[in-house]
């Protein structure tokens, strides 16, 4: 499952998509909208925008790279686009593997790469702070 979601992400469906009898370990990363920006401003919400076909293709590439590094894995990546409030789930990465070390490593790798290179952009909106800002990942 590799997708841009226009509405709320069903975390269970993403986890279930990677479950398999040979996989004893599922590691899931859920990224949610924080009440505070990295530089400490009070966030009320985010707008996410994406190049959807290229984003989905990037998720598939990242999964392929993870399998090259850590062997047989089942990977799902879903990122939400549109208007999100504080607490809303923005991204879910689920990785299933026979054993947990590979699942942890591959899940951490995948979310790092999604943040680094997926064509997805984020504009933060603030409570009685400055005007909204596009925010880039470091």
């Amino acid at each position: 499952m590799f997708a841009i979601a226009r509405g709320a992400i069903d975390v269970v469906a993403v986890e279930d998509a990677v479950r398999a009898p040979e996989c004893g370990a599922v590691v899931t990363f859920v990224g949610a909208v924080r009440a505070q920006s990295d530089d400490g401003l009070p966030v009320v919400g985010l707008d996410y925008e994406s190049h959807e076909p290229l984003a989905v293709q990037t998720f598939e590439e990242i999964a392929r790279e993870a399998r090259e590094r850590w062997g047989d894995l089942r990977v799902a990546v879903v990122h939400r686009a549109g208007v999100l409030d504080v607490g809303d789930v923005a991204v879910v990465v689920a990785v299933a593997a026979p054993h947990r070390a590979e699942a942890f490593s591959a899940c951490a790798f995948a979310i790092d790469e999604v943040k680094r290179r997926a064509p997805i952009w984020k504009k933060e909106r603030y409570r009685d702070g400055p005007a909204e800002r596009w925010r880039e990942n470091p």
Partner: protein
Amino acid sequence: MTVRVLAFARIRELLGAPESTITLPDGARVCDAWSALTGRAPALEELSSSTRVARNGLLVPRDERLQDGGEIALLPPSGGG
């Protein structure tokens, strides 16, 4: 030749639209398209080094030749997650 341009995030805002069409001399390259767009929206200039350009799902270099009727996507630094 004409090329369709998809713009996102800050670049979309500076260009005023998610899609636009630009007309360029035959043989034009990605960098020529970027120059034409900077003519329309000078504030793009400071985003030049951080913007990646994709065509058909692949990143392309600035000296890549464009094709008539083709499409490029202008991608600011990622902010997902």
